[in-house]
């Protein structure tokens, strides 16, 4: 079993080291890193903008590039969080808490160094888990029929909707809205048009890229234009500042290991993004620390643990995405979408049918992470400069990349209308405090869910009890019930708890602090 895995991995490295693949992987990592650093631009906008580029690529380099953008931007996000108190990805919001105070104390370089070492360590562990866990999961998932697939997708959507920040009800509402958007187009079974309003371009359904760029790009600009706090960047960094001392490394070691474990544990759970894991890792460190009162003032553990958990989660996330076809979070949903566009159905068969994609991707992760480590040391000066590019130049340029990116998906201006529509819809939803991520999860999973739902009930002749009588499906349904109960219970408890009470949980503090600090700065 292990020797087989090593042999497969060897094959994967062969694929990943092919010049063409290596080049696109490198390109993805670099672009992701660059965009991750810039405030106001996240992995999602970067990936959606470059998604059209993957149409002309072979699937292997396409996926390697997208994955590279993802973890590259994760590295970049830590830089913005530590140096500017500006997390470009929500997962780094926690890193701000102790990373930014370290910058203020003149130890920003050390914080970055610790963040990078933790990330690399965690990613390596995550990759190892992926190598050994995926084949096991595949062995189990061959027992999956439409019933089981529907149940696990339901679990994924439910977890994604309720475990993000904000009101779980609103998360569920956005998931359902996403499912509705996914239903637009031609019904596969009957061939009739749904929600197409007589527009021929809608008969193929809504364009995933247009939805993603609308809600994550345009909507965000609509709400943040002239409302971004002015950021003064005073960080000066040299390469040698980034090397942590032995004592600091020692301090970071156990938080790093614990953070990695937290990330890996949650990675196996579909639907939970890296944001929640980084909060949990931080809360855990806070709880077991001998000096909990020092958190928020520049603790090394407060940087190492959340960064490690984010990166192990990021890698382990690929397991359910590739082997079951269930994306762990929105970014995975986009990668899944890219695979589907290429005509590759993620699922248990993927490893067997496309070993070059699976093992090549794993090998490219490792190569990419090494590249990031090596790249970020000399490039840190460039990133600090880049942080000084003002938002007022960034967003008009991004607008151009958005419309051009969407145009290239079909060479049709119609998709630009979709971007506009989803930008406005997204801005309205966002202003009403709805989370955006579940929409995309719903859009990607919707058609698959509907298909499996219909098939399962066709096989059971309309008997709904099939979802709880088949053992694997019953297991997922039980977890779904637990999630709903758990969320209701915590909502009920929160309601009883007085507002502003100290026990408002690390979540609240973690969310509120960066925003508050920003405003007091300018």
């Amino acid at each position, binding site marked *: 079993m292990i020797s087989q895995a090593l042999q497969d991995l060897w094959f994967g490295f062969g694929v990943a080291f092919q010049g063409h693949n290596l080049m696109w992987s490198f390109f993805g990592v670099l672009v992701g890193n660059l965009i991750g650093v810039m405030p106001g631009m996240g992995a999602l906008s970067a990936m959606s903008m470059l998604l059209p580029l993957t149409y002309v690529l072979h699937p292997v380099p396409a996926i390697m590039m997208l994955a590279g953008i993802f973890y590259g931007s994760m590295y970049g996000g830590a830089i913005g969080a530590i140096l500017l108190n500006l997390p*470009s990805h929500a997962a780094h919001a926690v890193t701000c808490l102790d990373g930014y105070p370290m910058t203020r104390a003149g130890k920003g370089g050390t914080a970055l160094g610790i963040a990078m070492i933790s990330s690399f360590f965690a990613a390596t562990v995550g990759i190892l888990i992926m190598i050994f866990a995926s084949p096991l999961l595949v062995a189990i998932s061959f027992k999956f029929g439409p019933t089981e697939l529907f149940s696990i997708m339901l679990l994924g959507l439910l977890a994604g909707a309720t475990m993000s920040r904000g009101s779980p009800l609103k998360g*569920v509402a956005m998931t359902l809205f996403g499912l509705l958007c996914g239903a637009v187009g031609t019904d596969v079974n009957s061939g009739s048009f749904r929600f197409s309003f007589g527009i021929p371009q809608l008969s193929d359904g809504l364009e995933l890229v247009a939805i993603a760029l609308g809600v994550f790009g345009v909507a965000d600009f609509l709400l943040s234009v002239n409302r971004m706090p002015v950021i003064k960047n005073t960080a000066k960094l040299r390469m040698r500042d980034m090397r942590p001392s032995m004592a600091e490394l020692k301090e970071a070691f156990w938080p790093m290991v614990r953070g990695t474990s937290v990330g890996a544990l949650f990675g196996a759970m579909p639907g939970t993004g890296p944001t929640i894991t980084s909060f949990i890792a931080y809360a855990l460190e806070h709880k077991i620390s001998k000096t909990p009162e020092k958190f928020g003032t520049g603790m090394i553990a407060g940087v190492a643990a959340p960064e490690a958990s984010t990166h192990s989660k990021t890698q382990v996330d690929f397991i359910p995405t590739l082997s079951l076809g269930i994306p762990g979070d929105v970014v995975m949903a986009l990668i899944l979408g890219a695979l589907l566009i290429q005509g590759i159905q993620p699922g248990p068969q993927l490893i067997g049918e496309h070993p070059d994609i699976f093992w090549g991707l794993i090998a490219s992760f490792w190569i990419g992470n090494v590249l990031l480590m090596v790249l970020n040391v000399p490039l840190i000066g460039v990133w600090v400069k880049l942080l000084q590019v003002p938002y007022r130049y960034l*967003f008009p340029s991004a607008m151009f990349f958005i419309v051009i990116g969407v145009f290239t998906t079909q060479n049709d201006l119609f998709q630009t209308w979709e971007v506009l529509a989803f930008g406005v819809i997204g801005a309205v939803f966002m202003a009403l405090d709805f989370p955006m991520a579940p929409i995309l999860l719903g859009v990607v999973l919707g058609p698959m869910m509907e298909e499996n739902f219909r098939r399962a009930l066709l096989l059971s002749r309309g008997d709904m009890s099939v979802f709880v009588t088949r053992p694997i499906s019953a297991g997922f349904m039980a977890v779904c019930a637990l999630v709903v109960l758990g969320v209701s219970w915590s909502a009920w408890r929160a309601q009883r708890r007085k507002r502003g009470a100290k026990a408002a949980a690390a979540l609240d503090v973690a969310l509120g602090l960066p925003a508050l600090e920003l405003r007091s700065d300018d």
Partner: protein
Amino acid sequence: MSAPAQFKKDYYAGALMVIVGLAAAYAAAGYHLGTLARMGPGFFPCAVGVLLALIGVAIAVSARTDDGPPATTGHGYGQGMPDLRGCACIIAGILAFLLLGEYGGLLPATFAIVFISALGDRGNTLKQATFLALGMCAIAGVVFWWALQLQMPLFRWGG
């Protein structure tokens, strides 16, 4: 944010979801619904629409009591009304791109979207917006039209 504003927001949020859900369910009911064993194209969207409407009611009802942490994004923009000039310019920029993309070609369309959305930011001067737009035109021409063979002519007259 003051507590009453949050409550009001959730009433609007819930009402919006009820409207969207019911509209979708109504439209879906117009397609063939079918039975549980043999579902028609309308069944799944109709069920989702009804669920969405129910969740909308739940959001409005829980607005009375529940005050969970607001779902702020990581970008740290202020709460409250968005900036009207900025929004108008961004939307006008996209519309200009659509119009000029159809009737003027890639370069005018590119210039228009970057220039108009840059003017949305109160920090930009006319000169800065012009230079930014010209820079993007250069990228559009070299990278997208020349290198990536974008299927849109640089200039065209009246479609």
